Structure formats: structure tokens, C-alpha cells
């Protein structure tokens, strides 16, 4: 017998115990137990509940100790652990139910680290739009806290930020089982902080967050205007950063463009590596569609995949919505839909194409900048008119896909090259000029 093999040791124990107690007792108390591990001379016996643990301690402890010591004096003691239900039985075949099941499996969230296990790198599609972010993530996992600290990932909604940062967390857990990870949204952080102030346990709040080796904070843009929370984050950041603990942030815009955030916090957010996730290209979209459909057990034709990938613009989340409806269609009808059917069902999904009158845009923008609407159409080159006019051209082109010559002619008969120049200029400036970017954001809000 190999005394370090827990299964063999347990079988030996059972054979001895069986001789000493009545069969009824043996069947009741020993059938569901086992040796979980042997560590430092202590044998850990896993039992199903506290009823068992108490009774083992009361009735069987001396007997078990005697048997185990009989095997080897290396075993100093026995401890009893209650084994979690989840890890006791493997899942077996389930009966066929004609009713559909809720997708509960996707929603098991680990309480101690808040990570959703469904987000892993296995399901993460890497394309040219996110390969930099992916590479940064891998670098962090190789040397956490040292390579890029903090990592700041930004990009529009539905581009996979949350998936990426949660996947980092899940992978980190796998690679470094003894270190602690915690994922939270900035909103949760701020609620937690407010609660701790309310209940007078601010110190415990500080302690709680300083213990993590990897802290992941999602959607930091929501910290805007919450000055006290920002201050708390500032201190937390310093303490984690000084101890080489990795921090990861995500946001829907770059640190520079987050409005109403203290400069010292802004500086710290962008002090490590800042990467953005762009819009996925068609190939990546196709790959995503294929992967998601396969994950749901549906194989789609190449033409269908291409059609879905090209016709659904916007975020990956919207793409997922379409795939889900395709999957649902397959479950209901039994066969994957063909191109014609997908086209039919996609009609419900396609967003109404935005149409807008140039006049409407002009009046809104003029109103925004507080200038006379007529001056936009005039040939004037006054500074306060030029900027709004360029913004109008940019918006008409970018958001409403109006052709360059049309924009030119509608805005007082300008040449299309002037329009191209203006659009390019705004596009360039928007990258560096946070104020301009914010202005355009605000105007977009007005136009909806």
C-alpha cells in the first residue's frame, strides 16, 4: 500500500473501521466520506456536513487516529473538512426535457473575486483591432505588477473590454493560485465607499482593497464628479502600485477624455500602459460569429456567417444578439437557418438608417456654439464660425454618411475638397483635443 495515496489509505482505513463498528453505523457514516488530502502529517477527511464532522469528532476520532498511526507515525493528526457539494459529484447525463432551459451556466459568479468564469481567453477572438490590448494582457500575466502597471484599456461599448479584463483575472487565478484577484466596477467601488462611510467602517474598506494582488476596475469613467471616491482611489492606487500589485482599468474613453476627474487621478490612470480597442474588422467579426455559434452548438454556412458579420455594424454585443436569435431559431426549428431566413430575421435587428436634414444639424450646432445659423452658410472665415462649420461637415460625413459634394453644396456651395479637408482636420484634432472630442460628444447627444 502506498501510504501517501489518499485513496489507498482511505480504503485501508475503511477495511479496519468496518471490523470495529456495526454495518448500519458503517454505511451511514462512512459511505460518503473520503480523504481529501494529506499535508504536513495531517490527514484531512472530507465529510458531507457538520452532522458528520461533529459525530466523527465525538465517536470515531480515536479509532481513526489509531488506524492511521498504525500505518505510519508520520501522521500526526486528523482534521475533518466539510466538502463542498459542488465538487463532490460529477455531472451526469440529464433527462430529456422538451422545455428549454435557462442559460444559468453562464451566470455563476465567484463571490470571492467577482469574476465570471465564462470570460476566458479561450473564447476571446483576437484580431487586428485588439491585438495590442491582447499582447499587453499577456505581458501582464507573465510579469504582473512589473511590466505595465496600471494597464488602461479603453474603447467603445461592446468591443470586449470586460471580456478581456475578466479573462486576465481568470487566467491570473489559474497561473497564480495563491494570489488574490478582485474584479469590480467603479460604480460598485463608489457605492462600497459610501456605505463604509455611512456605517463608520472606512478603515475596513481601505483594508479590504489593499489586500489584492490584482485589482480590476471596470468602467472608471463613472467616477467622474465623485471627488471623494476619486481621492480614495488615488490612495488605493498609490498603495497598490508601490507594492507592485497589478491594477487594470477599463473605460469607454481615454484617461484624457474622461470629464470631471481630478488631474492627479487622471495622471495615474495613464501612467502605465494605455491601449485602445478599435472597431473589429470584417474578418474578426466573421471569426467571432463562427466562434459564438459553435459555442452554442450551431454550425452556420459560410455565406450566413459573412452576411451576419457584414450586415450588423456596431458593437460585438449587437452581433451576439443576432447570433443568439439565430441559435434560438435553430433550437426551435431543429436546423440552422439558411441565408434567406437570416436575411429575413435580421431585418428586425438592423437599425433604422439615420436620415437627417442638413438644416437640422446646422441649427443644432449653431445653437450649441451660440452663433447665428445663417453665418454657417455665408462665406465668412471668422474663427467662431469656421470651427462649427467644420464640425458640421465632420458630423454629416461621419454619422450620416452624406457625400462630400452634397455637404459642400448644401453648406453654401463649397467645393468638395474643402469639405474633405475640414473632415480630416477635425478627425485629426479630435485625437489630441479632449475639449473638441467632448463638444462633439455633446452635439451628438443633441442630434439624437
Amino acid at each position, binding site marked *: 500500500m502506498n501510504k501517501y495515496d489518499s485513496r489507498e489509505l482511505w480504503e485501508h482505513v475503511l477495511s479496519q473501521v468496518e471490523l470495529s463498528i*456495526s454495518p*448500519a*453505523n458503517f*454505511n*451511514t*457514516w462512512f459511505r460518503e466520506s473520503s480523504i481529501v488530502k494529506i499535508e504536513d502529517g495531517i490527514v484531512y477527511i472530507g465529510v*458531507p*456536513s*457538520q*452532522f*458528520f*464532522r*461533529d*459525530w466523527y469528532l*465525538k465517536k470515531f476520532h480515536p479509532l481513526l487516529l489509531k488506524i492511521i498511526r498504525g500505518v505510519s507515525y508520520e501522521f500526526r493528526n486528523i482534521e475533518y473538512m*466539510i466538502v*463542498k*457539494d*459542488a465538487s463532490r*459529484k460529477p*455531472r*451526469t447525463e*440529464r433527462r430529456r*426535457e*422538451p*422545455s*428549454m*432551459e*435557462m*442559460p*444559468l*451556466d*453562464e*451566470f*455563476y*459568479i*465567484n*463571490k470571492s473575486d467577482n469574476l465570471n468564469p465564462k470570460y476566458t481567453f479561450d473564447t476571446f477572438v483576437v484580431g487586428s483591432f485588439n491585438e495590442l490590448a491582447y499582447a499587453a494582457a499577456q505581458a501582464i500575466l507573465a510579469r504582473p505588477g512589473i511590466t505595465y502597471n496600471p494597464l488602461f484599456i479603453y474603447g467603445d461599448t461592446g468591443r470586449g473590454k470586460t471580456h478581456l479584463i475578466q479573462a486576465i483575472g481568470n487566467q491570473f487565478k489559474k497561473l497564480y493560485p495563491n494570489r488574490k484577484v478582485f474584479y469590480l466596477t467603479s460604480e460598485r467601488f463608489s457605492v462600497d465607499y459610501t456605505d463604509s462611510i455611512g456605517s463608520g467602517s472606512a478603515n475596513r474598506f481601505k483594508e479590504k482593497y489593499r489586500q489584492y494582488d490584482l485589482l480590476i476596475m471596470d468602467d472608471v469613467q463613472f467616477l467622474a464628479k465623485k471627488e471623494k471616491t476619486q481621492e480614495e482611489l488615488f490612495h488605493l492606487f498609490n498603495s497598490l502600485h508601490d507594492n507592485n500589485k497589478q491594477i487594470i482599468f477599463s473605460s469607454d474613453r481615454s484617461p484624457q477624455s474622461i470629464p470631471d476627474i481630478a488631474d492627479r487621478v487622471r495622471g495615474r490612470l495613464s501612467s502605465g500602459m494605455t491601449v485602445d480597442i478599435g472597431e473589429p474588422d470584417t474578418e474578426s467579426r466573421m471569426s467571432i460569429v463562427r466562434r459564438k455559434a459553435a459555442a452554442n452548438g450551431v454550425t452556420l454556412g459560410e455565406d450566413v456567417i459573412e452576411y451576419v458579420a457584414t450586415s450588423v455594424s456596431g458593437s460585438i454585443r449587437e452581433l451576439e444578439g443576432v447570433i443568439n436569435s439565430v441559435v*434560438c*431559431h435553430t*433550437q*426551435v*426549428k431543429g436546423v440552422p437557418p439558411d441565408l434567406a431566413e437570416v436575411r429575413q430575421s435580421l431585418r428586425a435587428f438592423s437599425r433604422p438608417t439615420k436620415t437627417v436634414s442638413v438644416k437640422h444639424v446646422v441649427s443644432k450646432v449653431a445653437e450649441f456654439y451660440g452663433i447665428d445659423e445663417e453665418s454657417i452658410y455665408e462665406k465668412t472665415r471668422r474663427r467662431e464660425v469656421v470651427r462649427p462649420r467644420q464640425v458640421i461637415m465632420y458630423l454629416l460625413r461621419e454619422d450620416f454618411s452624406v457625400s462630400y459634394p452634397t455637404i459642400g453644396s448644401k453648406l453654401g456651395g463649397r467645393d468638395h475638397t474643402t469639405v474633405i479637408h475640414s473632415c480630416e482636420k477635425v478627425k485629426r484634432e479630435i485625437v489630441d483635443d479632449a475639449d473638441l472630442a467632448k463638444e462633439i460628444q455633446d452635439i451628438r447627444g443633441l442630434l439624437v
Partner: protein
Amino acid sequence: MIINLNKKEFRDVVGIVSRFADKRSSTLPTLSGIALIAGDDGIKVRATNLETGVDMFVEGTIKTPGAIVIPSSVLRDISSSFSDSGQVTIEHSGDTAIITAGTAKSTVKTLPFDDFPSLPLPENPKTTFRIPGASLVSLINTVASCASTSTIRPELAAVLLSSEGGHVKAVATDSFRLAEKKISIKEKMNNFSILIPARNALDLAQTIPDTDVEVRVDEHQCAVVWGKNTLTTRLVAAAYPDYTQIIPKSFTSEATVLRKDFEGALKRTAVFSDSFQKVRLGFDVKGKKLALSAHNADVGEAVEPLASSLTGDSLELSFNFRYLQTPLPLFTSESITLSAGGIGRPLVIKGVGDQSFLYLVMPMNQ
């Protein structure tokens, strides 16, 4: 051991406690018994099936202290006829117990007390809270029938009980339907979240009184204490799915009907359901009707449109009629709203004006 007890009180206590004795014959024989323990702290009546256990005190005088185990079926059958308020004497000698009530005398074979397990109590309770027993009973009874009966996923065979922000809620699901009941609590309560195996929860609900009870919880065990009595149950230590993400936020079709009408129509239509127990639910917005229909090749078919107020799109979904039936008696309001999110998406049923109870059911494949 010699003890004197009030007959009626003893009958009531045995009636409650005997529910906790193990009914399976395959296990330890002593678990099918009820233990009577006469000690310094009074006379305790105890039973356990290693899932749940209960300790209840009964008034009486102790002549000689001691402890015995009497088979629960025998003790219950004897005591159930005790109706007057006279005295009963229980005397232990050798491996028999002599139960004397008036002129009646019975001698019962006992079970070994040595094998009778102790009741585990939470060691370092993480959370302790007080709650009116009636509220706890209503929470559990409302949802427990929706818990899974299979043990493959232990967390789904349990009732989730949790408190947050002045509400206590109970949730159960078997992944085909889900029930959530919320009540608001006036007293301040720490946040907690525990999983009680559904069967244990139902036993608990049948036992505790309507008055305030104290609940003590640690990771694996939970004790409910009222007066000197204690009930203890195993807890499921597993993660519960974040079910709130399954509850749809927007709907394509909604119908409001009288609950009585719906219940009756469902009963009549279900006669014609097939072997999968399928009934169809049609939202006919133009005709302002919510139609129930079923078709069984061997029996026949039925259709019953109900007058109702509808919004959204017309839609037809199929359901297992039992899943539609379960929640109906649990609504307190006259009318109910059925909200559907489209084909393949869950249907949500709520009472009109009643935010406390939510029932969600998945449709069948067409």
C-alpha cells in the same frame, strides 16, 4: 430515566418532531427514533435525519434523569390518541420503555441512544438575524416548489434566502422555471445569502412558529432558534447563479387576465395536452384575446380564448402546463400579467399591483 409529562403537550411536540426522524430503513436504525433526553436543562425531544434536526423542550417533571430513543412511528401512534390534559409517565428500564397513561400501559422496545447523533450548531455564526416566523414560512412556501428535485446541481435543489437593502427574498429554480418572493423588513438586518436544501426548508417551514425566530448561520450549517427550541439544517455551500440576469427587462407582448379565468381555462385545456404536457399560449393583440389551446392525437383538442387586455405583438408560445399551474395559487391579486419576450425567451408572470412575487418560465421548443 423516569419522567412525567402533560399528555396533550407531549402529543403536539411528538407530532412535530417525528417529521424529522429518518424514514428510510436502510440507514442507522436509531435515526428512525425520537430521543427523549432528561437532564439538568429540562426534557428535550430530539430527532434528526442527518440533513435537518430538531430539539424541542417539553414541560414535565424529572424523577430520574437519563436518555432513551423510541421508534418514532410507535411513539407517534401512541401519543396521537392523547387528547385530555392528564399525565403520562415514561420509564426506562433495560432496553424497553414503559409508557403509562392512566390505566393504559405499553412497553416499547428502545433503540440504542449511544448511536444517536448530536445536533450540530453553527460554530462561529457569521450572521445572526431575527425575522418573524410567519414571514420566513411564507418566503419558503412560496418558492420551494420550484426548486430542482435532482441532486445533480445541489445549488438548484436549494432555496436561496438573502437579504439586501431592507428586503429579504427567497428564490428557487430548476432551470425551467424560477420563483422569487420578496418581503420588506422593518428592522435593520445585515446582508446575508444562504442556500437551504429545498426539502429541509419545507420541513423548517412546517415547524417554526409565527412569532419571531432567531437564525444563526455559518458556512455549512444554519440554526433557527425560538424559545428554548432549536432546528438545525445543513446548508449548500455552492455558488448560486446570478439569476437576475435571466429576468428579461423588456417584453414584446404583454397580457393581463383574471387569475380565476386563466386557472380554469388552463385546467380545461390541460386535459388535451400531449405526453409532453404541452399547451399553447397565444397572444392575439388584434382580437384582444389570450388563447390557451392544446392538441393530443389520441384524445382530441381544445381551445379557449380569454378576454384580456394586451399590448405589443401577437405571439404564440408553448409551455408545460404544470409549470404554468404552479404559481397560480400563490398570487394574491385578482388579475395577473403575463409578459413574453418573444420566441425562445422566458415568460414572466406577476400579480397586478404586486411587486413581491415574480414567476418566470421557459417555453418549450415548438
